[in-house]
C-alpha cells in the first residue's frame, strides 16, 4: 500500500503544481495503462519509484528533488490539511514530534490495518542533533520524509537543517526550536465549509 500512497501523492503533487497535461505526459512516458491512482488499492511493488523516474525525466529535475518537494507539498497543501493535522498530533514541539516518528507505523496500523509505513529509528546523536534511519522497499521514502520534516519544522516554527545521509538516513539539526511562531494547531478539527 506504500506504493499506492506515494503514487497517489505524486499524482496530486504533479497535477496541482504543474498541471494535468504534465501528469498525463508522465503517464504516457511510463507506459501506464491508467491515469489516476487509488490510495487504497495495491499496485506493483516498485511502481512508485519507476513512475518517479519518468516524472524526473519529464520535469527535467532529479528524482530526489521531486520526492522532497512532494513531501513538502503533502504537509503544506491546504487540500491535504489532514496529513499535517495527523502529524501535529505527534507532539507539542518539533523535537517532541521527531520522537513521535518512531510511533508512526504503529499509529498508521491502528488507523488502517495493512498500512505499513516504513519503520523509523530516531537516535539523538548530540543535543538537538538527530539521526533518523528509515528502511523502506521504496527508494523515494527517504527523500519524501526529508521534505515532510522540513515542512513540519516550519509548521512548528523551528529552525532546522534537514539533510539526507546516504540512502536510508536523515540528519536533523535543530538550530532554534522556537525560531518563529509556527502555524496554529487546534485539537478540534476545523468544521468543514461545504
Amino acid at each position, binding site marked *: 500500500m506504500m506504493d499506492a500512497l506515494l503514487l497517489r501523492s505524486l499524482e496530486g503533487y504533479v497535477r496541482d503544481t504543474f498541471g494535468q497535461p504534465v501528469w498525463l505526459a508522465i503517464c504516457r512516458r511510463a507506459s501506464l495503462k491508467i491515469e489516476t491512482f*487509488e*490510495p*487504497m*488499492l495495491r499496485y506493483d511493488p516498485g511502481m512508485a519509484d519507476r513512475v518517479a523516474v519518468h516524472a524526473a525525466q519529464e520535469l527535467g529535475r532529479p528524482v530526489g528533488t521531486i520526492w522532497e518537494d512532494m513531501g513538502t507539498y503533502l504537509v503544506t497543501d491546504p487540500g491535504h490539511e*489532514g496529513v499535517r*493535522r*495527523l502529524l501535529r*498530533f505527534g507532539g*507539542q514541539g518539533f523535537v517532541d514530534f521527531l520522537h513521535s516518528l518512531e510511533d508512526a507505523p504503529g*499509529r*498508521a496500523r*491502528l*488507523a*488502517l490495518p495493512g498500512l505499513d509505513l516504513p519503520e523509523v529509528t530516531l537516535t539523538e546523536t548530540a543535543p538537538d542533533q538527530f539521526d533518523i534511519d528509515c528502511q523502506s522497499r521504496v527508494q523515494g521514502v527517504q527523500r519524501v520524509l526529508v521534505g515532510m520534516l522540513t515542512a513540519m519544522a516550519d509548521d512548528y516554527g523551528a529552525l532546522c537543517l534537514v539533510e539526507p545521509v546516504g540512502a536510508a538516513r536523515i540528519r536533523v539539526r535543530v538550530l532554534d526550536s522556537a525560531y518563529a511562531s509556527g502555524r496554529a*494547531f*487546534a*485539537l*478540534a*478539527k476545523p468544521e468543514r465549509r461545504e
Partner: protein
Amino acid sequence: MTQGPAGREFPLGADALCRFMPMHLLLDPEEKVISIGPTLRRVLGEAAVEGASFDQLFEVRSPGGVTRVSELITRSANRFRLSPRQAHNVSLRGLGQRLGADGTLLLNLTFGIDLIAAVREFSLTDTDFAATDLAMELLYLAEANAAVTQELRGLNLRLEGARLAAEEEALTDPLTGLRNRRAADLVLERLCKARAPFGLMHLDLDYFKAVNDTLGHAAGDFVLENVGRILREQIRAEDCAARIGGDEFVIILPGRTDAQILRSIAARIIAKVSEPAIFEGSPCRVSGSIGVVRSPDLDRPDAAQVMAASDRALYAAKHAGRGQAVLLAGGAD
C-alpha cells in the same frame, strides 16, 4: 500529602497537582474548592472559584441520588460520573480519595469518549492534557479514522461510477447512441420472464445497401445516425430502441399492445425514415420495413420466439413491397 503504600507520605504541591492532574478537584472537609486543575477550570468557566461548593459545581450522575463527595467516595471511589452544572452536556468520569486525616478530598476527572466534543467546545490544546493522558492518541485515531473512511467512501463512489460507465458502454451502440443487441436481449428476456405485455417492432432499412455502395460508408453511417435520432424521438422513456445489426433495429414497447397504436407508431417511423436526408449535398433515400409483434399474440413467449415471430412479420412486410409495417396476426405461433 498523600499516603504511600508503606505508610509514607509524599508532599505534592498545588503546581505539581495541576501538572499531573489538570482535571483534578481538591476540596476541603466542607467540600469547598481548594484547588481546581487548569483544564477542569476551562470546563467550569466562571463558576470555578475557590470556596465554591462541590454541589454548586457538579451534579452526580452515578451513583444516583448522591450529592456529597464523602458519600460519593464511600460508595464508588473508583468510578463515578459527574456533569458540571454549567455544562450539562459534558459527562465526566472520575475517581476520588480522602487525603490524610484532615478530611481533604481529591477527585480526578476525565472526559471519556466525550473528549472530542469537549476539545471543540472548550477549545482545548495539547497543553491542557498531561503527557501521560491518551487524549492525543484518541483524537489522532478519530481523525485518522475519519480520513480513512472518507477515502474509502470516495473510492467506492469512483468505482461505482466506473462500473456504471462500463455497464452503459456495454449496452450502447456507439454509432447511433441507441441500445445494442445485448441490451435489447436483456429487456426482452426480462419482459418475457415477468410475462409482462409488450409490443415489439423489428425495423430493417430498405435501400440502405444502395446508399452505402453509391455514396460511401460515411453516408451510410449518416443514415444510421439519422434513424437513431428518429427512433429516440418517437419512443417513450420506458421504451427501448436498439440497433441489433448493420441496418436492423428493434423497438420494444412495454405495455403497448394495442394494434392501432402500434401501427400508427410504425407508420410514423417509416414516414420519418423515408424523408430524404441530405449528406454532403446528396440526398440519401432509404425507407424502412417493420415487422410488429405483440406478446399477447404469442403463447408464453420467450425471447427467441418473439424475435423469430418478429422476423417473420418483417419478412412479410418486405414481401408486401417495402416501406410497410406488418403486424403478425393473432395465434401466429
